[in-house]
Structure formats: structure tokens, C-alpha cells
């Protein structure tokens, strides 16, 4: 009560000038827009030109080796992609990679967040840091460590699985088409679930205890409390986390490059790898821009639909 009282009766001249100005500013009808200015400036100033020129590049032929002067060719790059079997394989692989990846990472993140959030558990601090460690590891180290862990000659995971009788012989996880994608998904699950854990734990903290207590008094069981209280209130955080993670999965080829580089064959070849190869092995920036634009469109569609369906921008 005393805090609010103090705020309730400020005498204007007693307040320090900057505070006074911001306080005044915040009362204006344009406050919402003023709040947006800093971030908009930063992002718009830097985002608009690169993305626009990137998309424009997809309508041009621009290859550092062969056609170093960009020339407009309309939908030529897209026509090339349409007839390129590698492109379609990459699309299929990306669909698997993103769906299974995002779902598995979200579920593990949610489950661990719920567990961490339980009041009265001991040793949660140490557990929390431990769970976060995979996300802290730089990709170059994480990628090479996992290729060592799963190595078919000196890999610890193989050794343990053989000693415990689960496997008969060492398996070359990344060398077989059937297991390569699964193995990379496990590595990314390890690396990325803490992203969800961290965000969801923070989000769960925002749900008032009183709501649960009231529900318990009314006789609601754990499932009910979860579905009717936790999930709905957590939705804004879930939507933000899922969208950000999906964007990361679609756009970043870092783990894939280290673990399999799209192989064996094309078993783990995804769109981000196609764009990367086009740009930095083929120096065909026009083609890379086309793949990038396809990825952009897919992500835009997904994000708009998901945001609308989940209602987070509903007023």
C-alpha cells in the first residue's frame, strides 16, 4: 500500500526533469508509437535494405564466377529450382527436420520446465544450470563432440550401447541413410531443448499461484489445471518460442555442416544447406537468393498462420 501511496501524490516540481519528461510523454496519445521508435529504427534501418536486395537478387542471374554483373531474368532462378530434384529433396528433408525437431524440443522443454517449476523441490538451482549447458556450447564444439561421441570407431555412445547389450556392434550413425537424420535430430534436441526450458520456466513464473489454489479448492485435478490454466496462460510465450525456434531450424545449417554436410547422399540435405552451398561453394548468389526467398515465404506463411490460430495478436 505504501508504495502506491507514494506514487499517488507526486508534486511535479519535485520530480527530476528527465523523469518528468518521460512521464509526460507517456501520457500522450502517441505513447504507443514513441515506445516503438528505438526498435523500429534499429531493425528497419538494417533489415529493409538487405532483405529487399536479397529478394531482388533472386530475380537476377548473379554468379561471381560466370556472370559477375547482375542481370534481371525474372523467374528464371525459380524455374531452375522447380526442376531441380535436389531442391525438392531438400524441401522434404526440411519439413521432417523442422517438424520433428521443433516438436521434440518443445515437448522436452515443456516437461522439464513443468518439473523445474514445482514448488518445494530441492536442488533445483544446480539442475537448472545443468539443463541449460547444451545451449551454451558453441556449435563448432558441440558438433565435433557429438561426431566423436557417435563415432563408429571410438565413439563412447556406441561403446556404452554395446557393453550394455543394446547394440551388437558399433553403428555408423551418420553414414547410414536410415539413421543419419535421426542422429542429427537427437543432437539438435540435445542442443536446443534448453531454449524452451528457459523460456517456459520464466513463463510459468508469470502464472499466479492463486489461480491454481482456487482451482484446487474447487476440486480440479492436475490435468485440468494444466489444460485450463497453465497452457492458455503460457500460450504467448509458447508461440514466441516455437516461432523463433522454427526460424532457427529452417535457417541455420551449422550443425548439419559439421555432422553430415547433407549426406550420406542427400539424406540430410536441407534448404539452409542448399543456400549455403550455392553461396559459398558455387558463388551463385542469385540461386542462393532464390532459395533464401523460398525459405522466407515459407516462414512468413507459417508464422502468420500460427499467430492467427493461437490468437496472440487478438485484442
Amino acid at each position, binding site marked *: 500500500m505504501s508504495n*502506491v501511496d507514494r*506514487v*499517488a*501524490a507526486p508534486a511535479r516540481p519535485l520530480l527530476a526533469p528527465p523523469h518528468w519528461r518521460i512521464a509526460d510523454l*507517456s501520457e500522450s496519445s502517441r*505513447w*504507443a508509437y514513441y*515506445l*516503438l521508435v528505438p*526498435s523500429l529504427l534499429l*531493425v*528497419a534501418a*538494417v*533489415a529493409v535494405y*538487405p*532483405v529487399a*536486395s536479397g529478394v531482388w*537478387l533472386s530475380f537476377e542471374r548473379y554468379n561471381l564466377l560466370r556472370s559477375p554483373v547482375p542481370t534481371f531474368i525474372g523467374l528464371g532462378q525459380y524455374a531452375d529450382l522447380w526442376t531441380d530434384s535436389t531442391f525438392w529433396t531438400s524441401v522434404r528433408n526440411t519439413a521432417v527436420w523442422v517438424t520433428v525437431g521443433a516438436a521434440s524440443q518443445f515437448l522436452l522443454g515443456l*516437461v*522439464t520446465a513443468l*518439473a523445474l517449476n*514445482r514448488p*518445494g*523441490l530441492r536442488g533445483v*538451482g544446480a*539442475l537448472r544450470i545443468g*539443463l541449460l*549447458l*547444451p545451449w551454451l556450447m558453441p556449435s563448432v564444439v558441440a558438433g*565435433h*563432440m*557429438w561426431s*566423436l561421441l557417435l563415432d563408429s570407431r*571410438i565413439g*563412447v555412445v556406441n*561403446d556404452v550401447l554395446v557393453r550394455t547389450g543394446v547394440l551388437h556392434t558399433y553403428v555408423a550413425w551418420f553414414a547410414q541413410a536410415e539413421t543419419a537424420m535421426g542422429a542429427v535430430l537427437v543432437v539438435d534436441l540435445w542442443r536446443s531443448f534448453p531454449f524452451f526450458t*528457459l*523460456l517456459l520456466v*520464466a513463463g510459468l513464473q*508469470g502464472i499466479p499461484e492463486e489461480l491454481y489454489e482456487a482451482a484446487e479448492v474447487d476440486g480440479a*485435478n*492436475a490435468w485440468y489445471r494444466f489444460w485450463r490454466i497453465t497452457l492458455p496462460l503460457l500460450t*504467448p*510465450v*509458447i508461440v514466441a*518460442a516455437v516461432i*523463433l525456434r522454427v526460424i532457427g531450424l529452417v*535457417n*541455420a545449417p*551449422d550443425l548439419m555442416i559439421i555432422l553430415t554436410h547433407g549426406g550420406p547422399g542427400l539424406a540430410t540435405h536441407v534448404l539452409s544447406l542448399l*543456400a549455403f552451398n550455392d*553461396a559459398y561453394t558455387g558463388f551463385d*548468389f542469385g540461386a*542462393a537468393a532464390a*532459395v*533464401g526467398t523460398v525459405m*522466407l515465404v515459407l516462414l512468413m506463411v507459417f508464422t502468420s498462420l500460427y*499467430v*492467427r490460430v493461437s490468437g496472440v*495478436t487478438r485484442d
Partner: protein
Amino acid sequence: MGSRAQTRRFYDAVAYVVLIAAFFFAVFPILWTLLTSLKSNADIVTTEIQYLPLRPSFENYATLWAQAGFTAMFFNSTVVTILTVLVCLSVGVTGAYSLSRYSFPARGQLLLFYLLIRMFPAVLLLLPIFIALRVLGLYDTHIGLALAYSTLLTPVSIWMLKGFFDTIPPELEDAARIDGCTRAGAIVRVVLPLARPGVAATAVLVAISAWNEFLFALMLTTSQGIRTWPVGLQLMVGEYQLPWGLLTAGGIISIVPIVLFFALVQRALVRGLTLGAVKG
């Protein structure tokens, strides 16, 4: 009454099982990284896998630290990360609050617009940003790299922070305003304290992303200037060389500062004030 306590204990037990399994899954590879960093190369590439190092030594760490430029790279990464977190939080809190609380035309589209720069593969953004930094004279400077990171991480911050702000009922601010608070005052006195876990989580995630970022760091810095830690790690991997001991030592060194940062920030992740205290 008894059965409710029983159900609670049951779920507590389930929680422990889940946490310990997940903890094991998360920590085992890190532990292996640590063990590998204490071995010499001859003990890593062997016919019989050595679990515990037969001849543990900190030689890899010593070599790494003595190697030219590593302390400098570490320092550069720290400075760039701190700058990035400061920019992203200040710019992110204001933007996210507006998008969370106020409805105005094109709000949905604006939210999507912020994500635009993240939806395009980084490889294609490099040239424009490279040229921009050179033109501004910010190429190979801490501020330049932090700005480049901030443009990528501000959208992330805004989306995350907006999500957290959305979970705080606006009625609380209305109550504060009725009591005479300005809108800005309400943000500072009501929303931010309640959103502390969210702000802390966002700060941690932005810090981690900035600390580990490789591609922009590679392209926008040089060894004479502000080359950062992840580039140093990548430099260890040559065409014919992969020094497991050094690389893993580098990885362990890499996570120490963030673990410390997280330990500091950890208490903020737990909401200090409860709703009751503010409502009065």
C-alpha cells in the same frame, strides 16, 4: 486432504525422475567434453576407449591460454556480448511493451516485420551489413559487431518479451494508474518487476547467442582487430587437423562465463513479488 498430499508427492517424484533423466542427457556430453579436454591426443584416438583419463592434465588449457590472441578474443567476446545485451534489452522492452499493450493498425504485420531479418538466411545478409559497417567506419569494432548482432537479436528480444508481457494482466497497470501513476511509472513499478523472470531469460538467451555467434564474427572482424572467441575455436579445425584436446578445452572455457552470468541472474528467474503484494 491426505490424498492431495499423496498426489503432490507422486508428481514430485515424477518431476525428479524427469529432471534427473534430462539432466543426465544434457550433461553427459558436456562431461565427456571436459574429460576429453584433460586427455592428450594419443589418449583420445585409441583402439580402446579411455573413459577416465589415465594421465589427466591441464596441458590443453595451458596451451590454449598461451596461444597468441586467445585472451584478447575472450575479452572481445565479453565486450561485444555485454553491449549487445544492453542494446537489445533497452530497445526490446520498449518495443515489446507497446506491441503487447496497445492495439494500432498493422500491429500484427509489424510483429511479422520484425522477424523479417531473421527469416532470411544470414549468408545473404552479410554483404549489405559488411558494406554498411565499412561505410560507417564501424568495421572491426566492438560497437559495430554489437550493432550487427543487435539487429538480429532485437526481433528475438521483442518477441520473447512481448510473450512475457502478455502474461501479465493489464488490470494491474490500470489499478496503478487509478492511484495516480503515469503510464511510464506503471511500467517501471508494476510490469517490470513482475516480468523480471522474462527479462532475465531474454537477457540470458541474447547473451548466449551473441557469445557463440560465429558467421558475422568471422566476416566482420580481423585478427588485428576484435576477433572473437568462436572464430578462435573454429580456427583450430584445419583441413587436416582436429586437435580434440584443444577444441574441447576451448569449449569448456567457452561456457564458464555464461554459467557465471546465469548463476548471477538465476535468482531473477524466480519471481520475487507475488501478485498479492502488489494488489494490496
